[in-house]
């Protein structure tokens, strides 16, 4: 291990990266080196190793140091290794992590595999000895900024550090990351080779974003034309357009009519609901809260579930499809599906009867009586009150309804 020198990991002109492998631990002879697991890089000229966590910790050794190398197979609890035997330390070697070592060989322990390919490439490089043909100058110890003209350094360490920082930034502030979408995506393909999946992800996400922007622009243009009644657009075409919007998840700017989104999908759904909800509605006194319907229907489906909006849009079509159900919104904003046969008068009359019978009722008591949800019972009582049949006693003990004797 005393053959290694500290390095900044930047490649020189004419030096090319051949292969790199993560998850490698170095051994000084048979002993584990006093370093953590890191990345080993093979270039045409050197063997480089860098700590994964601390990118400043980077060491390198010229390939000319290598006499021979051999594979050491993996064992139980032991990773596969490559043992590299080395020449004596040259006199002008730059300082490194080890001043001195009693061994003249090192081992690379491949904890995340990759030893087969690495061995193959090392063999190639040691056979070709490309470093002999293209000697490199002394490594530059300071940053490359001002030396940009001198080297075309593809500073791996520098790039990976920037990516790590950017990754942290991105994780924290997504919107900032997406501001980059306006800039050309030059960097990403270059980095994709070196970088992990998440950048492939971001690159694909960016492309999806661009495509989506176009589609939304187009749909807005069409919507405006329809609104202004420009051109001769048939009903069919409008329905088709609405279904495109639906499949993209673009809000429908054309109409906010009572027919909801007016697509065939929702018409079908409405008919299905008409069949499916008859029995449950009758069991529950003719009325169900929309959230209850949502749970019931989706539990029954198991997959290809309905979105809340799908349900609302389908329910809005009950009347136009002449189905015996209605969507109803109470003053409180509570939305229910009710059987059309279930008339308002009946509900109010039954509420009044029950209250007269018991003298007074709270929503909870009424719910227990009828075996229905508290929410809907409260709505019935409120309705009866609205019609003037009941009056309330509102105290900290609760809301209680009495027959209206006025």
């Amino acid at each position, binding site marked *: 291990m005393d053959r290694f020198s500290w390095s900044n990991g930047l490649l020189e002109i004419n030096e090319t990266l051949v292969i790199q492998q993560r998850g490698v631990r170095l051994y000084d002879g048979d002993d584990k080196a006093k370093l953590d697991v890191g990345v080993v890089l093979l270039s045409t000229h050197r063997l480089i190793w860098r700590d994964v966590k601390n990118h400043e910790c980077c060491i390198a050794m010229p390939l000319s140091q290598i006499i021979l190398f051999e594979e050491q197979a993996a064992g139980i609890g032991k990773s596969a290794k490559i043992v590299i035997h080395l020449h004596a330390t040259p006199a002008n070697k730059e300082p490194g992590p080890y001043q001195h070592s009693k061994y003249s060989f090192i081992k690379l322990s491949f904890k995340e595999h990759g030893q087969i390919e690495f061995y193959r490439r090392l063999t190639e490089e040691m056979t070709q000895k490309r470093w002999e043909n293209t000697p490199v100058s002394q490594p530059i110890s300071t940053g490359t900024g001002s030396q940009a003209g001198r080297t075309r350094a593809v500073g791996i360490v520098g790039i990976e550090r920037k990516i790590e920082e950017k990754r942290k930034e991105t994780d924290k502030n997504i919107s900032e990351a997406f501001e980059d979408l306006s800039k050309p995506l030059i960097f990403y393909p270059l980095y994709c080779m070196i970088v992990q999946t998440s950048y492939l992800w971001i690159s694909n996400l960016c492309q999806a974003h661009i495509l989506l922007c176009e589609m*939304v622009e187009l749909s807005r243009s069409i919507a405006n034309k*329809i609104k202004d009644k420009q051109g001769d657009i048939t009903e069919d075409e409008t329905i088709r357009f609405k279904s495109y919007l639906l499949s993209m*998840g673009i*809000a429908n700017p054309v109409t906010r009519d009572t027919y909801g989104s007016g697509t065939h999908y929702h018409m079908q759904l409405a008919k299905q609901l008409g069949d499916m909800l008859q029995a449950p509605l009758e069991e529950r006194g003719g009325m169900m809260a929309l959230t209850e319907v*949502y749970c019931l229907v989706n539990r029954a489906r198991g997959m290809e579930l309905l979105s*809340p*909006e799908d349900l609302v849009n389908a329910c809005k079509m009950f009347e136009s499809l002449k189905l015996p159900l209605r969507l109803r919104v109470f003053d409180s904003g*509570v939305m229910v599906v009710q059987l059309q046969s279930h008339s308002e008068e009946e509900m109010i009359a039954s509420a009044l009867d029950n209250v007269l019978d018991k003298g007074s009722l709270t929503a909870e008591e009424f719910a227990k009586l009828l075996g229905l949800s508290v929410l809907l019972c409260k709505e019935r009582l409120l309705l009866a009150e609205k019609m003037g049949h009941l009056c309330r006693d509102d105290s900290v003990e609760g809301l209680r309804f009495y027959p209206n004797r006025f």
Partner: protein
Amino acid sequence: MHRRGVGAGAIAKKKLAEAKYKERGTVLAEDQIVQMSKQLETFKSNLEEFASKHKQEIRKNSEFRVQFQEMCATIGVDPLASGKGFWSEMLGVGDFYYELGVQIVEVCLALKHRNGGLITLDELHQRVLKGRGKFAQDVSQDDLMRAIKKLKVMGNGFGMIPVGGSYLVQSVPAELNMDHTVVLQLAEKKGYVSVSEIKDSLKWEKERACHILDHLLKEGLAWLDSQAPGEAQYWLPALFSESTSRDVTPEEANQMTP
């Protein structure tokens, strides 16, 4: 709705309109709709490829879901608008959130008798995770919030109230205005609040404080402890935490009362 007329007269009229439009350089809406359907096909195949690469990641990693949602939000696209959308069908995001919606409704309904329809996002998160079992996909608080946003559409009073760095999830259509919210935020630290605390911290008159607290009592969101030393305390069961409370059975309760 316009209907395309038939007959020579209508055709001529159409040709004239087309010519006029082309003159001004504008494109006919019908042509644009055709263009849109072509672009949709392209989009669909791109999305298929996207899904083949990233569907698993989105399923497993809530961070990916956040990024994906934010990307869509910046353009005004709602991938959760419909189960019939491309997003649901190809990327499978829909079912994840819609099912989560069902679970949220069920948890809120089950606890409503106790907390009046108000629950902390943390407690909701814990209970939903428990209900999903060990082998289900992980669910983050961001996922819950997006599912709740969708549930609002169904008008059953779902909403979120910011409190102490997190949120209270409301699942009943109780009217809660700014005053109520502020009192809830005040109560968040200890789980209860008193009239004099409100007077001191918020500088309200006694009547205003009492009015608000009464409303919370009526809605079943607060419980009155009139036996507290000093003055009455108004406790909020939604804010009960593991450290200050626990569930007991009726038998245990009988043994505990003095």
